[in-house]
């Protein structure tokens, strides 16, 4: 488990948005890409290679689990561990933002 955690120490922006996509509902790959495209207003255009790698990695790390297989299409859902990692990342980003805003007010 410690090794798995170390592997996910760095959550890239695309990984973060992939986790975000699963917060409210189960999804398949194309749904995730569509969600991210909508959420970021086209700033991040998720490619199949990136998404395929992230989904496989999150599944092996226990952040996502498969819920349904329809033909060749797979649907995933976020796990408790996935939600915890996501929450930790949100908290880390919030602290970064607070530090940045504090620094900006101090300069003024």
């Amino acid at each position, binding site marked *: 488990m410690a090794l798995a955690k170390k592997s996910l120490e*760095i959550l*890239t*922006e*695309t*990984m973060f948005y992939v986790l975000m996509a699963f917060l409210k509902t189960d999804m398949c*790959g*194309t749904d995730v*890409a569509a969600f991210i495209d909508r959420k970021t207003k086209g700033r*991040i*255009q*998720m*490619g*199949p*290679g*990136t*998404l*395929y*790698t*992230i989904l496989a*990695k999150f599944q092996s790390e226990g952040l996502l689990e498969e819920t349904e297989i329809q*033909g*060749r*299409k*797979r649907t995933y859902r976020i796990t408790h561990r996935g939600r915890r990692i996501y929450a930790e990342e949100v908290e880390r980003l919030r602290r970064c933002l607070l530090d940045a805003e504090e620094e900006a007010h101090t300069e003024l």
Partner: protein
Amino acid sequence: MKHHLFLPTFLPVSFPDAMETFLEDMAKKGWFLKKVGYFLSFCQFEKGTPAPVRYRLEPVPDTVRTPSAEMVQFYEDFGWKYLTTFSHFFFIFVAENPDTPEIHCDPLVQAKGYKRMCRNFSVFGLASLALLAIFLGIPLYHPAFLLECPRFSAFALVTLLAFAVLILWSVLRLWKIYRNLSQGKPLSHRKGYLHIFSLQTIILVLLVLFLLPFSDKLVEWDENDQITQALTAVEEPLPYVPLAEMGISPDWVQTPYDPITIGGKNSDSNYVRSRSNVLAPATFQISQTAYHTDPNMPAVATSMTSYYGEMANSFLAKIVGMDFANLYADTPGISGYKMEKEPLSLSGFSEAYYGDLLGNAQLLLLRQDNRVLIVHYAGDASLKDHVEDFAKLFTQSYTPL
């Protein structure tokens, strides 16, 4: 009927960007990739209407030859169609729609695929380099071969070195791609390929020539450099001590030819072989044999074989001397035998020693700067009693035949 084109790409796997550019350029001319053969990466193209399609090479995730059905469907849902596999390392995908998003949008995630590939390719690269090192090490193990076959040796060394450089270059380039991706730098999908094609083609041509009878031709030319003559036919001074001066018994006879004929032809038994090239301006291999006059005795009564060489430098003289001494000291039927060297006190010589080969033969080695003499003698006399005679051979130079 669709037209087909078969083209060897000769592109190393460490240039995925060059391969993508090449395929896209072909598509703009109306040639679309259908399949890549495993041997020499022969690409099969099919003629169609020129179009600006995009090709992308994806590192193979594990040891499979084709992507899983799930992966194929996944990529197809995004507009990328699986075409074929390139060597053991890449899956090739194609997108016809220019609005299809790129396969990768996160270099850090893409780096994971390349890391695995780098490791696998490095193992393959190291294994190839180890094999090449063995071949490249042959001249060090048997340096006399360089002198006997200089043309073939030079050609083989150049070819093997070129291969080694290509493999090392490929491994290093792959690791550079991985490093750039790990630092967040996206992979470029455009790269010139003509110079890579040319370099790889030259190296492959060298390899083909090496394997073809061309290398046999080089060996033949090298062998033709060697002149063989009966000792009695040579008037110029030669670097050897005649067998008669070693003490020859009246029971023996030293004839120019072997009394035991082979195939009805007389073969020389007292001869000199001489050769000259840039590494060794003058070398002589001299064989002398005397036979018993009594037919009840073994045919060969005594023999002496010597190698004398004037090399391009003293280092060559040293290693060639060692090589020939090992060859002459090789005792058939007794493996692992190590001859004891008895150093000789001889002024003006860098190296001088005597060896007894289990009482059956004797060896003498004398080396002075860039000149070396090795003598193998099987007879009743002692080489140690004639060291001064052999040392005198170094007081003059010799002209090759």
